[in-house]
């Protein structure tokens, strides 16, 4: 018998410290598989955000750096400009990317920096204990929207993939989910395309990954998957928003 599924080489052996059922683990694995498949692990540097995945540096078996909250795209810009041959990806939460890091992601995308951004949209601030994210859904209860997100005072959930797709410098953007195997396989494909786009020098690529935070949603992992499918996917449609022909 042959091993047909196991831990990718681009992951260390350290067990994830994420909560049970948290999608960060799946996203990590998919990225690692893609790095393996392209054979780029040894020239890759990953940029961790501040958020639950600040610990990603422990789990990826490639060079890693931790950026200040929201600034991963700028750090990635600095690295890529200094070493254009390396493969640079950022891994960012929705607080990190879509709130405090808005200017950085917009301008990095607009400059068409040849990097890959993995954007974990779990509709909440996980690390800090469950506050409202820019992507929190209308009516969703969080520590800072205790009576549900009210669009009148808190605005509507931001559609990052759509907004960034308006920028000309962007090569590839898609939105995927991780709540069931079929979605996970699609997510993997999207991540492949994103890295491929970088490897081919096409410019900025981003994959928005709808993910669960069972802990701060107050749901079991299975309930969380269900909530994601019933609430997030209808608001955040899955699919590709921008593709350079050669990558799609």
């Amino acid at each position, binding site marked *: 018998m042959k091993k047909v599924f196991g831990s990718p080489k681009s992951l260390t052996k350290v067990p994830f*410290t*994420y*909560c*049970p059922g948290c999608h960060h683990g799946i996203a990590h694995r998919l990225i690692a598989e893609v790095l393996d498949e392209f054979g780029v692990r040894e020239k890759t540097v990953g940029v961790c955000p501040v958020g*639950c995945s600040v610990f990603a540096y422990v789990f990826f078996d490639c060079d890693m750096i931790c950026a200040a909250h929201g600034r991963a795209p700028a750090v990635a810009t600095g690295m890529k400009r200094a070493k254009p041959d390396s493969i640079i990806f950022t891994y960012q939460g929705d607080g990190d990317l879509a709130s405090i890091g808005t200017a950085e992601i917009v301008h990095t995308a607009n400059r068409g920096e040849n990097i890959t951004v993995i954007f974990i949209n779990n509709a909440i601030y996980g*690390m800090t204990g469950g506050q409202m994210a820019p992507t929190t859904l209308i009516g969703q209860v969080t520590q800072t929207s205790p009576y549900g997100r009210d669009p009148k005072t808190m605005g509507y959930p931001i559609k990052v993939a759509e907004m960034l797709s308006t920028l000309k410098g962007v090569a590839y953007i898609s939105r995927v989910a991780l709540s069931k195997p079929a979605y996970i396989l699609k997510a993997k494909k999207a991540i492949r395309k994103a890295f491929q786009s970088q490897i081919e020098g096409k410019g900025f690529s981003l994959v928005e990954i709808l993910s669960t935070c069972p*802990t701060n949603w107050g749901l079991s992992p299975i309930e969380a998957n269900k909530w994601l499918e019933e609430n997030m996917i209808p608001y955040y449609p899955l699919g590709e928003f921008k593709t350079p022909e050669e990558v799609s």
Partner: protein
Amino acid sequence: MLERIIISGFGGQGIMLMGRLLAYAGMLEGKNVAWMPSYGPEMRGGTANCTVLISSKEIGSPIVSHPKILIAMNQPSLDKFEPNVSENGLIILNDSLIEREVNRDDVSVIRIPADDIADKLGNSRAANMVVLGACVKKSKVVKMETIFKALEKTLAGRNQDLINLNKEALKQGAELVED
């Protein structure tokens, strides 16, 4: 009088609530109290613990290096804090989840099969109250009635059944220890 208590267990075992009830009760009895949680993401999946201080005088340092009382709700907690308990201190442990013996012989030890009792009571989440009941009875850091009052105030607005269940758990825990 300065009571120094550390309560430790898994996240989700209701560790913080145990501490807050003790502190609340201490306050209701006119003492100075302080409650300090461990905090931050390292709690996630890992151990959670809190410190309670109850004192007749102003409380200086809220940091307890050497608790007089340790409540260990699971094995990692016992491993972590056992060495620090002060001489002649008291360790109350959750027998349902801790198999090993306590190594120290200069402290009193009470073993409470908390999860088993809670399961019997029909709510596995009441294990914390069982242990707290035992602790209060044994240590007398506060009176049992005050804990009841604290419970009512803390859970005010919640289901009365829940409050009653917790009281029952406290009582059952208390019955397991001698005065």
